[in-house]
């Protein structure tokens, strides 16, 4: 893993407030906290983008059994080829 160093400017009070809650939230260092927040933010962005894409793919009224039948059908078509 290649790491890059990042410098931030932040108000002293904010940093002190962060330091107070770090261990309560299960983080040992500011670095750990920052990485976790970054991952969370990226995950949320991906989830929102994916949700939007899936909205466009959604077929109303389709049931689990319909999907089972659809998969069965295309597999049997493939087997006949």
């Amino acid at each position: 893993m290649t790491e890059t160093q990042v410098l931030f400017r932040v108000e002293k009070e904010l940093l002190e407030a962060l330091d107070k809650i770090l261990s309560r939230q299960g983080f040992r260092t500011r670095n750990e906290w920052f990485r976790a927040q970054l991952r969370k933010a990226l995950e949320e962005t991906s989830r929102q983008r994916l949700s939007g894409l899936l909205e466009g793919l959604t077929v109303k009224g389709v049931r689990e059994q319909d999907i089972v039948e659809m998969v069965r059908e295309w597999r049997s078509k493939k087997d006949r080829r």
Partner: protein
Amino acid sequence: MTIVVDTNVMIAALIQAGIVRGLVLGNPDVFIAPEECVLEAWETRGDWNRRRVPDALIREALDLMTDRFVAVVTRPTHAEREPEARTLIRDPDDVPVVALALAVDNQGIWTFNTKDFSTPELLARVRVLGTGEVKALLKGSTEDR
């Protein structure tokens, strides 16, 4: 926690709004699928893409889903277990799913097709889960945290 998903579940997450999609998107580090399932989903998009969404967007949806929400496991991981899997499941297209479940620690295979995944020999080796059981397992795991 690790749960193996089959092609049915992948397709449902793509085209069905509701509980399956919610479980997949809400639990990013839980689900895995053999690469064969993802390939099958891509190759059959002409059948399930009823709204004629352009391929580029389907590709993006599949990439995002497999990048963050359903980890794709490549064949070398489970290839060695395929001969055993063939003796446990009739449909050759389900062999990769069973082989993967035999190859890695997991809580079970999530499928809608519990009928095909119901031989005593298979059930002696892997747990087969319906959507309700997956929901219950994940609820329990959230409460454990």
